[in-house]
């Protein structure tokens, strides 16, 4: 089961893992063999859900590589929520390269997920959201998060820096 949800490849000591589907109690990282990894880039784009045991298994795997440079990429809201809620889900020196922010139109009920990327929509100094977000029909969309909570992990990082 795990092999369908995890895909690992490498370029020398730099590893890339794609995670998909549900990160749950059955998702094991034991088969992901990394030989002297210096850097790991994790793509969370296709993650649909994560449960409490999945959170634990992820943290346990991250703890095995304390000196590895870790980058999270294309994080959906469900992953951003864990980064904010669970200390250790993003390792102390880990970095978020990109993540999705939900936008919503109260009148039409339309939702969009807008990608925020480091150096463009955010950096160590704060966030710079796009000025005008619209759906396909031209309706204006508003950021649908409580900013102090959703972007908390960025604030923590910039304070630590």
């Amino acid at each position: 089961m795990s092999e369908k949800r995890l895909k690992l490849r490498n370029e020398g000591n730099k590893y890339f893992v794609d995670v998909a589907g549900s990160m749950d109690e059955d998702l094991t990282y034991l088969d992901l063999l990394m030989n002297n990894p210096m850097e790991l880039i994790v793509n969370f784009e296709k993650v649909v859900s994560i449960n409490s045991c999945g959170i634990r298994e992820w943290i346990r795997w991250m703890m095995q590589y304390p000196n590895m440079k870790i980058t999270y990429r294309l994080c959906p809201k469900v992953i951003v929520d864990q980064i904010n809620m669970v200390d250790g889900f993003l390792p102390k020196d880990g970095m978020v390269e990109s993540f999705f922010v939900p936008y919503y139109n109260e009148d039409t009920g339309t939702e969009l997920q807008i990608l925020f990327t480091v150096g463009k929509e955010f950096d160590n100094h704060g966030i710079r959201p796009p000025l005008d977000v619209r759906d396909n029909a031209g309706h204006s969309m508003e950021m649908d998060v409580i900013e102090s909570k959703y972007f908390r992990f960025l604030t923590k990082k910039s304070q630590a820096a």
Partner: protein
Amino acid sequence: MKFIKKNSIFFANLQYLKAEFKNIYLIEKGCEPIRSKPDHSILISDQLENCDVINHINLNKFTAILNKKSPYYIRDVIRTSKIMETPDLYFKDPLKLVFEEVPRSFRINFNKKEDKQRIIYESVEFFKQIRSSMALEAIYAVIEELFMNAVYDAPREAQKLNNSMNVKDSELLISHDSELIIISCMDHYGSLNIQKFLNRMQLVNNSGAGESINMDAEKGGAGIGCYILFNHCLDLIIGVNQGKATRFTCIFPFRMGQKNFSSITKSIHFIDLKSEAKYERKKIKTKK
């Protein structure tokens, strides 16, 4: 009591609650310190934050906390009055507590970890027309945690209590109308310790999930599932009939923005069928 129209039901129920039962506390301006009250009281407030809800219910031994500012406050009061009147109904048919006429719903039985994929698949099919990513995220999260509790945690606790392990299948019940989604899960172990559960919720709430997570898989679950459930619900109802059944019911909006959802203080209700000091009725004065 007859349940006819919504608004009249609300007032009738709130007045009924206050007239019939001693244990209704209404806090409207500020959080006053709770002085003396009977156990198993219900707090109705418009002043609490979510972190306060857990602390109040654990430290001050409330049975339920209802949020007066919730857009579903009327439904919450009606539901609470029904539970106080007939606690058994929660275990037999929780949908009747929430819906006047039960909308579309389905039940699925399960008893082993291999059942999860089937449950997820059928649930996703049932909610196919939902376009709300917030609701879908909550559906996945709630089903995951409720499933794990019924398949792993409940039997483990039952074994510790020397309860019978030869029990009927657990049941997942899912329903929705145009406003609310309900996911309810019942196991037949009845091994939940409400106080232990509350203590755990309070620990995670106060210390953070990262600090409280149980990293030792040999000792069971991660211990933060209760917190995840609470975070995804607007209303959380937990009932236990010791040795017979435990039912968790999660209620959340069918369609709502994340920001709106995050700003609503949640309601919570515990039902312990074997509790001695239940909902204490006021004495009725009789003419001689």
